[in-house]
C-alpha cells in the first residue's frame, strides 16, 4: 500500500513537471517569432487601431524584463488568460476555444466509444480464432487504414456519400443557420451531420485497438491459470469471459490514454475536411489568420487534457494491477 502511494505521488509529480515544461514551451515558442512580437502577431491591417497595439504591449507586459514577463505569463496561464481573440476583439480566446470544444467532444466522444468497442470486439475475435480468415482479414484491414491519412479518408467519404450519393451533408455540425436545441428535428440533424466525420475517425482507428487487444489476449491465453481453468472443465466461452478477458483489458487502459493523442490528431484533420466547428477547425483557422491567442489557448487546453488523461490512466493501471507499483 505504501509503495502504491509513493508510486502515485511520483506519477503526480511527473505530470506537474510535464505541465510546467509545456508552459515553458508555450512561452518560448511564442517569443521565437522574429521582431517585436506585437508587430508579428498583429496583422498589418488598417482596421486594427494603434491603441490596440499599445494595449497589447501593456497587456503582455512586453516592455518589462524577460523574467517579469515569464512570471506574468505563468500567472496568466494558470488563470486561463490568453488575451482576446484577434478576429473578434472583446471575446477572450479561451472562451472561444471552450465554445468550440463542445463540438469536438461530441465528435471525439462518439468516435472514441465506437472505435474502442468495435476494436476490442474485433481484436478478441481475432485472438480467439487465430490464423483464421477473419484474423488475416482484420489484420489486412488494419494495416490498410493505418497507412491512410485521416484527412484523405474523410475526403473519400465526402466524395462517395455526400457528393455522389447525397446521403449525408458534407459540412458543418448542423444545418447552417440553425442552433442546437433539445428537440427531435435538431437532434436528428446533429446525428445526420455527425455520421460521416465520426465514421472516418472510427474506421481509421479501429485497427489500432484491435491489434493491441489481440496481442494482449494472446499473451494472457498462454498463462497457466487459463490452462487450469480449462482443466477444471470450464466451457471455452466461460474461460474467455471470466479468465482471459478481464486480464487482457489491463493494457487497453494504458492504450486508451495514449491513443487519445492519436484521436486528437485525427479529429483535427476530420474537422478541417468537414468544416466541423470544433477546436481543430478553430486552431487551423487560427494558423491562417495568425490568431495567436487562440492558438496558445487551444495548445494549452489540449496539453492539460492530455497530461490529465495520462495521469488518470496511470492511476487506473496501478489500482487495477497492483503488481505494477512494485516496479
Amino acid at each position, binding site marked *: 500500500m505504501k509503495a502504491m502511494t509513493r508510486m502515485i505521488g511520483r506519477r503526480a509529480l511527473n505530470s506537474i513537471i510535464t505541465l510546467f515544461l509545456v508552459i515553458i*514551451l508555450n512561452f518560448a515558442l511564442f517569443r521565437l517569432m522574429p521582431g517585436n512580437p506585437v508587430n508579428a502577431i498583429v496583422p498589418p491591417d488598417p482596421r486594427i487601431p494603434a491603441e490596440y497595439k499599445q494595449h497589447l504591449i501593456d497587456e503582455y507586459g512586453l516592455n518589462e524584463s524577460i523574467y517579469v514577463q515569464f512570471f506574468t505569463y505563468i500567472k496568466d496561464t494558470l488563470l486561463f488568460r490568453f488575451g482576446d481573440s484577434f478576429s473578434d476583439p472583446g471575446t477572450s480566446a479561451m472562451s472561444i476555444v471552450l465554445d468550440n470544444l463542445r463540438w469536438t467532444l461530441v465528435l471525439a466522444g462518439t468516435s472514441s466509444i465506437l472505435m474502442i468497442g468495435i476494436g476490442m470486439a474485433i481484436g478478441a475475435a481475432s485472438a480467439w480464432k487465430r490464423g483464421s480468415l477473419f484474423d488475416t482479414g482484420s489484420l489486412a484491414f488494419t494495416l490498410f487504414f493505418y497507412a491512410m491519412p485521416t484527412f484523405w479518408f474523410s475526403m473519400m467519404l465526402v466524395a462517395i456519400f455526400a457528393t455522389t450519393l447525397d446521403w449525408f451533408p458534407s459540412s458543418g455540425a448542423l444545418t447552417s443557420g440553425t442552433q442546437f436545441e433539445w428537440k427531435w428535428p435538431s437532434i436528428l440533424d446533429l446525428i445526420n451531420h455527425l455520421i460521416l466525420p465520426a465514421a472516418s475517425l472510427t474506421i481509421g482507428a479501429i485497427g489500432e485497438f484491435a491489434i493491441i487487444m489481440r496481442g494482449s489476449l494472446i499473451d494472457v491465453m498462454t498463462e497457466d491459470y487459463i490452462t487450469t481453468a480449462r482443466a477444471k472443465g470450464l466451457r471455452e466461452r466461460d474461460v474467455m469471459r471470466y479468465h482471459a478477458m478481464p486480464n487482457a483489458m489491463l493494457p487497453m487502459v494504458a492504450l486508451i490514454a495514449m491513443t487519445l493523442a492519436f484521436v486528437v490528431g485525427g479529429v483535427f484533420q476530420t474537422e478541417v475536411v468537414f468544416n466541423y466547428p470544433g477546436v481543430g477547425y478553430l486552431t487551423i483557422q487560427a494558423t491562417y489568420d495568425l490568431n495567436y491567442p487562440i492558438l496558445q489557448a487551444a495548445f494549452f487546453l489540449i496539453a492539460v487534457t492530455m497530461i490529465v488523461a495520462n495521469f488518470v490512466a496511470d492511476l487506473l493501471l496501478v489500482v487495477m494491477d497492483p503488481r505494477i507499483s512494485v516496479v
Partner: protein
Amino acid sequence: MMSEVRRRGISEPTIERLRLLRRRTMATWEVYRQNRMGMIGLVTLLGFVFVSIFAPQVMWVLAHIAGWPSTYGPFDEVATVGRGLPPTADHWLGTDFRGNDILARTIYGSRVSLLIGFVASLVSMGLGTVIGLFGGFWGGWRDEVLMRITDVFLVLPWLVLMIVFATLLPGGPSVMKVVFVIGITGWSGTARLVRAQVMSLKSRTFVERARSAGAGDYYIVRKHIFPNVFPLVFANSVLTVALSILSESTLSFIRLGPDPTRVVTWGNMLEDSMAGYAFLNELYLWFMVPGLCIVLVVLSFTLIGYALDEIFNPRLRRR
C-alpha cells in the same frame, strides 16, 4: 606488424569486420526473402523510388508512347489556369487550377514526399537514439531531465505540436522547415524504446567487463551499447519513415508545408484539390491518385518495418 598491415591500405581487422557484416547481411536477406508481405512492400517501394529518381525520363517515355504534344513538367502551364479540368487523352488525370498536368505533379511529387520522409525520420531517429542512449546509460538525474522532456513530446498530440512549431518557427514555409518540424516532434517514442533497451543492456556482463578494463562512458556506448541497439532502431526507423510521410502530407494539406507553386508534394496536391473544389466539379482523380500513392508508399514501409521487426526481434516471431 602494424606497419605491415597499414601498407596494404585497409587494416586486417577492418577487412574481417566487413566480411562479417556482409555475411550477416546475406543471412538477414535470406530470412527476409521468406517473408512474402515484406517482399511485396519492398518491391512496391522500389517501384516508387525508381519513378521518383527518373521522374523526367518517365514523363518523357509516357509522352512518346501516348503521343502527347510535349513532355510536361510539374509547374508547366499546359491547360486553362483558374479551374481544374477533367481527364483527356493528353492529360490522363486532368489538370488542376494552376493549369498543371496532374499526372506530372503526381510523378514529380513522389520526389519531395519520399525525400522528406527519409530525411525527417533520419533527424528524429538520430535525436531519439542519442537521447535514449545517454538517458538510459547515465541514469540518475540526467536521465530524469531527459525523460521529462521526452514526456512533453510524448504526451502532446503530434499534429498539434507540428502545427504550433510550423506556425511559430521563423522563416517561410520550406522543405527544410517541414523536415525540421517533423524531426523535432517525432523523436520521443524512439527515445523511450532505445532507453528501455539500453537499461537492460547496461547490466549485462560484457558492459561490466569493458568497464573494469578501463573503458570510458563514450567508448562503451559507442562500441558496446549502440551496436546492440542498432537493429531495433533500424526496424523502428522504417516505420518512422511511414509516419513522416503521413506527417508531411498532413502538414501540406493544412497549408503548413512547402509552397505549392515551387515544390510539389502529394500533400499539397490534396490541399489544391480541396481549394479547387474537386468534389463539386467531380474531378475525383485529382485527389484519388495522390492519396492512393501516399497509402501505397506508407503501406509498403509498414510491411517492410514489420518484416524487419520479425527478424531482429524474434521473440515476436511466433505470434
